């Protein structure tokens, strides 16, 4: 018996001690290599700053999208695979609005609602400086519609299953994801449409080169930051945050204490849905284009961010998002473009192996 148990124990002690050490060594080697490349000249300082900046931009968007996932993950106890398609819903709802506001009266109706296969912003000249009202309206509608959709889907799909285990809910959410994505596909067709034109840029000299800051990248970082701050204040200084923490810790106890759990769940969906929709709109703004797979393509990255930071922690989702965003961009120093996304998944896998509870996790709380 003892002999048979030994390999397991050795393995688990390896996991506890050796794997983190190995990863630390690997990280150190990569860091040293980064320094070497900077000194020798394989990598310019401006390129490094550019990677870090675009990583930050992506990370903020992923982190914002992750907050909603993290909240529902901890309160309802399941990994929501439809979350990626909630992002897409937000992007489409928001951009239809932006197109309508920016171009009402000047171009045909079907172009405005993005359904025409050659829908593009070319004729509308949408960007954050020339059509700020349209962008703002889009952001608000994206948040609103996505919140409505998430609440409606909760009512139809997830609420009848409140007592089911997390895996049953997970599989049901896969069904929701498929139905939602392909409904959007029928409504809007699968083409990739261009959304913005003539995005203003500013170049800043760094070292021997320069880094170009796009206005939309800055917008994404600022707006995502403001929304994160707002969420923080909301959860920190209202009863809602406390109630959510209580529910995540122990649902029965929360119910006994007099917390209206169904109402808290609904509020969570509204809050998470609104943030997710806004994130979808901002991701499309930053990319300057979108298709119906926008959210699905990023779902695993959002999962990676949430798990990396620790399920249930909104700060974890933000930190995780930043790590994932910067990993994707910084990996370009070593990897070809097409494998940069894979690097984020590798980080996720290693993170789960070394610290399954995430960086800021441990207790699943808001």
């Amino acid at each position, binding site marked *: 018996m003892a002999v048979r*148990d030994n390999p397991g124990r050795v393995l688990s002690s390896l996991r506890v001690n050796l794997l983190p050490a190995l990863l630390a060594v690997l990280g150190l080697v990569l860091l040293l290599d980064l320094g070497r490349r900077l000194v020798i000249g394989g990598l310019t300082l401006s390129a490094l700053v550019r990677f870090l900046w675009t990583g930050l931009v992506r990370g903020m968007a992923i982190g914002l999208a992750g907050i909603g996932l993290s909240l529902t993950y901890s309160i309802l106890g399941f990994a929501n695979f439809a979350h990626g398609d909630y992002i897409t819903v937000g992007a489409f709802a928001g951009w239809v609005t932006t197109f309508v506001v920016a171009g009402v009266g000047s171009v045909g109706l079907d172009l405005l609602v993005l359904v025409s296969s050659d829908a593009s912003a070319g004729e509308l000249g949408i960007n954050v400086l020339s059509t700020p009202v349209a962008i703002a309206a889009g952001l608000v509608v994206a948040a609103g519609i996505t919140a409505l959709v998430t609440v409606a889907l909760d009512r139809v799909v997830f609420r009848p299953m409140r007592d089911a285990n997390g895996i049953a809910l997970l599989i049901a959410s896969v069904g929701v994801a498929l139905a939602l994505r392909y*409904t959007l596909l029928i409504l*809007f067709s699968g083409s990739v449409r261009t959304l913005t034109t003539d995005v203003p840029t500013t170049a800043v000299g760094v070292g021997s080169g320069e880094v170009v800051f796009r206005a939309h990248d800055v917008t994404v970082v600022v707006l995502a930051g403001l929304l994160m701050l707002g969420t923080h204040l909301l959860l920190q200084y209202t009863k809602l945050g406390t109630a959510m923490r209580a529910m995540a810790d122990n649902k029965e106890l929360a119910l006994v204490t007099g917390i209206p759990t169904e109402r808290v769940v609904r509020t969570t969906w509204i809050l998470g849905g609104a943030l997710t929709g806004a994130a979808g709109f901002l991701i499309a703004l930053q990319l300057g284009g979108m298709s119906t797979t926008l959210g699905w393509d990023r779902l695993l990255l959002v999962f990676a961010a949430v798990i990396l930071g620790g399920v249930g922690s909104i700060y974890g989702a933000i930190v995780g998002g930043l790590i994932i965003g910067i990993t994707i961009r910084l990996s370009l120093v070593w990897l070809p473009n*097409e494998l940069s996304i*894979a690097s984020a*998944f590798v980080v996720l896998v290693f993170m*789960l192996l070394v610290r399954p509870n995430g960086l800021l996790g441990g207790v699943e709380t808001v």
Partner: protein
Amino acid sequence: MSRLSVWLRRGLRALRHPLGGDGDADGARSDLVLVGGLVVGVYALFTVMALLGPFDGVGNVLSQLETVTLLVLVYVMLALALNLQWGYAGLLNLGVAGFMAIGAYTMAMLSAAPDATVPGLGLPLVVGIVGGFLAATLFGALTALPAIRLRADYLAIVTLAFSEIIRLVVRSEAASEFTIAGQRLGTGGANTFPLPPNPVKVLLYENPSEPLVAAVDSPTVAGDLMLEIADVFNLSASQAENILYTLLLLIPVGAFYLLLTRIGNSPFGRVLRAIREDELVAGSLGKNTRRFKITTFAVGCGLMGLAAILWQLQGQGRLSPGTFEPELTFFVFVALILGGSGSNTGSVVGGIVFAAVLLEGPRALKRVVDENFDVSADPDTIIEASQGVEPLFAYLLSDSSIEALRFIMLGVVLVYLMQRQPQGLLGHRRGQAATVSLPTREEEEP
């Protein structure tokens, strides 16, 4: 040799009791009736639809039935393999597509000719198939080794991430062609990877690697016979060849069922069911649950790789990284859940119902509607389509919309199953962890 015969005999006995603890001869017979009835029903349905569709001779009907049968067989194999992991041991593997890709691409890289458009090692196909199976098994074990102790939902995400890593690497420029120890190898990247000719082609043609148009000019004796039979039914050579391949595929599918039933009814399978029900108890009884789970995961992944190989070798035989997107994984899950996870017969039923009704049904139905209703409208967008009933009808029946409607239906079915019928059609027969059938014994007691 005698060990093998004992094993086979036990396997055959297990076949008569395919439902684990609560199976008996009657159960096996009723299973056979159930599956047989289902197959007859599916064939009847598709024959009717083929006759109502653009009817083009008996050969065309046979060919359409072949398409359905191939998909059914593939999904039966995949559902059986996934049932071992999810139904028996409760391991939520969302990386099915990735392990399939590993099996298929390893086979291709081992067996493709060194001078082909995508170069390979040029080994015999058998080596490639065995190699693909072993590679998928090995990758399954390597994934399971660290990941198996994770919570079920984390395991799902890690395996999904793993399958995406594989797909991204396979389709990357770096992997499309590389050189190891002076040997040129590659995956073809985002392009297709032409596979070496499958055994049926080798059997039928003297020059099986030629394109079909040229290959039919020099058939073997068997090929001659097949072409003559094909002529009788007015089948083209490729249709006849595909039908033969699909018929031969019944052998590995039968072997899958035999093997998995055998595993399920063995002491090993009972431990797996015990782990599924309560891992702590199984561990307390001295079972090394971790090792059981890793073995199960690896074997399941290997079988998925094998199923992918047998699927992709059919017909033209081209691998494309687009085949192995995560949707494929969800397809297999729907098939398994539909039939009822935990029961091998359920997996078979689920595979049949899924592939025939959900996957191929809408396409056949579209052919019927196209043939019988003359829809002149051809709207480009949903706005044009919403101006009347006929344009809307035409829009929803366009090729891309039918594909999308199929996915929407899948999603709705998945949600419905999880809400109302989480045990699937046959899931109430999950098989117990106990050696003897407990309810039966209670019945016998008075």
